[in-house]
């Protein structure tokens, strides 16, 4: 068996979540890189300003550490390992070198770009510098007289940016998730609403209501097509069903007139053929006509029931008395089987006496016929709060599970019944169940051992209210 696909809602949620998170990641990448470029430009101008200060007012010798701490504070870097200072020139300060400068510096090979610096017209240029594992940003101010270099570790602004992103993500992610869930739920609700409506409408259609059609007016265009094709399917089904039902009704009916004539003429001929061998043949013919008549009657009733038109003549019926009569018949036959009957009191129901009698005749007749010598038959009937329940159990030679599954099938006979002796037509049980259904009851085959058959007949006390 295939594993069922996961729920539609769940799939909607996952797809929506995937889309939303992709969008979020894209936004974060674009915003982050823009913000980073902006921060680098800001750092450039600050570096230039500090370089200018270094050149114009260099710290007195011995005061470099304080100066460096001051510069580091303005650039928001650690003075110990994230800042490089270097100056030389005529300012009187001589040569200053602060921070972990690399040994050899090929300053002219750096990718310098100019920055419009504030202050006197000296050009400031900046460039990226990579030393052992650290990325720096270097600003340089140089003229004929002096030269100043200030460099800051880029890790500082990267760290700031990363912290900011993490803070935003911590707030945004749950909100996005919540919105995604809500959105997915809303979407799937909207998408499923017409489908659910359709499902409910389809459920209410059964074999008795094939003439139902689902309304299309108030549905969206996409669903209108679906409903229209469903309606079309129902229409074809109804036509085929009606045709089949009408066909068997017509066939059964057409048989009735010739059967009536045959039966009547044979019946009239029997006394005339007295004391000749012909009389026996005529009697046999009469019995065969009787068999045909019984089959055609059952077919007609079945086709009427299929079309939901089994007209019941409900009267007050004493099911207990009816059962007792048949139990007495069984006892009269002197069966070679143990017969136990437990018929409760007050089994009064409103039912069609003729049809219910036929059901009892059929199931009890079968039980008596198919119970092997030395077997057991038991009939239990009791009143239930809603009606009457009759449980009929009898031993049989062997009824396989395959046979059980086809028990109520029309024209089906189990192996035991396939002999000519057993004069069923394979329609009796099917018709019995249909009659029980027409009364609002049921006839079911209960699970039991292979060598036993248990039938449970339920009939309601009152019929359904007539519409």
């Amino acid at each position, binding site marked *: 068996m295939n594993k069922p696909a996961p729920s539609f809602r769940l799939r909607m949620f996952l797809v929506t979540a995937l889309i939303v998170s992709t969008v979020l990641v894209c936004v974060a990448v674009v915003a982050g890189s823009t913000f980073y470029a902006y921060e680098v430009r800001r750092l450039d101008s600050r570096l230039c300003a500090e370089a200018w200060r270094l050149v114009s007012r260099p710290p007195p010798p011995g005061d470099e550490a304080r100066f460096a701490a001051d510069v580091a504070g303005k650039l928001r870097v650690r003075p110990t390992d994230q800042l490089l200072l270097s100056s030389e020139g005529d300012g009187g300060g001589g040569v200053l070198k602060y921070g972990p400068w690399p040994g050899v510096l090929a300053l002219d090979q750096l990718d310098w770009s100019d920055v419009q610096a504030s202050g006197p017209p000296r050009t400031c240029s900046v460039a990226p510098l990579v030393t052992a594992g650290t990325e720096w940003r270097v600003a340089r101010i140089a003229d004929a007289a002096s030269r100043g270099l200030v460099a800051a570790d880029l890790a500082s602004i990267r760290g700031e940016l990363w912290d900011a992103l993490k803070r935003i993500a911590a707030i945004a992610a749950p909100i996005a998730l919540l919105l995604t869930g809500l959105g997915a739920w809303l979407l799937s609700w909207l998408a499923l609403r017409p489908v659910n409506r359709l499902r409910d409408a389809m459920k209410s259609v059964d074999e008795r209501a094939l003439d139902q059609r689902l309304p299309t007016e108030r549905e969206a265009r996409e669903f209108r097509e679906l409903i229209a094709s469903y309606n079309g399917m129902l229409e074809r089904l109804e036509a085929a069903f009606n045709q089949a039902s009408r066909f068997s*009704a017509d066939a059964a*009916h057409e048989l*009735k*007139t010739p*059967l*009536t*004539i*045959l*039966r*009547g*003429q044979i*019946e*009239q001929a*029997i*006394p005339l053929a*007295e004391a000749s061998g012909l*009389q*026996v043949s*005529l*009697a*046999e013919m*009469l*019995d065969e*006509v*009787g068999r045909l*008549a*019984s089959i055609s*009657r059952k077919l*007609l*009733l079945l086709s*009427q029931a299929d079309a939901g*038109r*089994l*007209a*019941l*003549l409900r009267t007050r019926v004493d099911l207990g008395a009816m059962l007792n*009569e*048949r139990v*007495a*018949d*069984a006892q*009269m*036959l*002197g069966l070679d089987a143990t017969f136990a009957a437990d018929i409760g009191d007050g089994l009064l129901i409103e039912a*069609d006496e*003729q*049809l219910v*009698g*036929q059901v009892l*005749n*059929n199931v*009890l*007749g079968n039980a*008596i*016929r198919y119970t092997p010598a030395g077997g057991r038959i038991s009939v239990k009937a009791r009143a239930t709060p809603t009606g009457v329940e009759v449980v009929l159990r009898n031993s049989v030679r062997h009824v396989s599970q395959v046979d059980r599954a086809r028990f109520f099938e029309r024209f089906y006979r189990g192996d035991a019944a396939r002999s000519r*002796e057993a*004069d*069923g037509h394979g329609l*009796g049980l099917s*018709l019995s169940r249909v009659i029980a259904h027409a009364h609002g009851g049921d006839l079911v085959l209960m699970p039991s051992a292979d060598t036993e058959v248990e039938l449970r007949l339920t009939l309601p006390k009152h019929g359904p209210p007539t519409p």
Partner: protein
Amino acid sequence: MKVLLVEDEARIADFVCAGLAGHGFTVETCSEGNAGFERAAAGGFDVILLDIMLPGRDGLSILAGLRAAGVGTPVILLTARNELGDRVEGLNLGADDYIAKPFYVEELAARIQALLRRLSGDRNSRLQVGNLVLDRLDRQVTCMGHTIELTTREFNLLEYLMRSAGRVLTRKQILEHVWGYDFDPSTNLVDVCIQRIRRKIAFIDPAGDAATPIESVRGVGYRFRQAP
């Protein structure tokens, strides 16, 4: 007893006439609906047998027309197509009984007699053939003044045989009349029941043992011996 049969199928009408004539009924037939209604409304019949599907006017409409016109003659419907539905509708319209096609003429005759007895207030509830007397009202059978205890089935079977005294009835015919549709526990149910009735009669009337009133007709069925 006069019977009007409204039936369009001539061969059915033929054997019904013949069969009912054997029970002492005079049958007049009519094969068209409107003519059937005219004839029925004119009166003079003890029972009207109405087919449902008729040319001109259908049986249910004839029945409704008759009852509307105040004609109270008992009506038995001969239903075919929609047996159950016509039964419900027919009884609602005032039919007295119905019989489904295909029927046995003996069964039809039994129904007519039962209907007439019911309507005549059971004045003729006693039926005597030979020295057996059957009382439908008390549901009692007596033989030479002694009551014979019979079960419901035995009583119904004996009554059916006595009403058709002199005619052979097959086991199937008896089974359907006494037990109804679709009861077929074994082929010898009718035989067993008849044996029991015979034994009970023989117990009262030892002379009857040799000449039992219920004869077996080999290969056919049973017949109640007609009184000489």
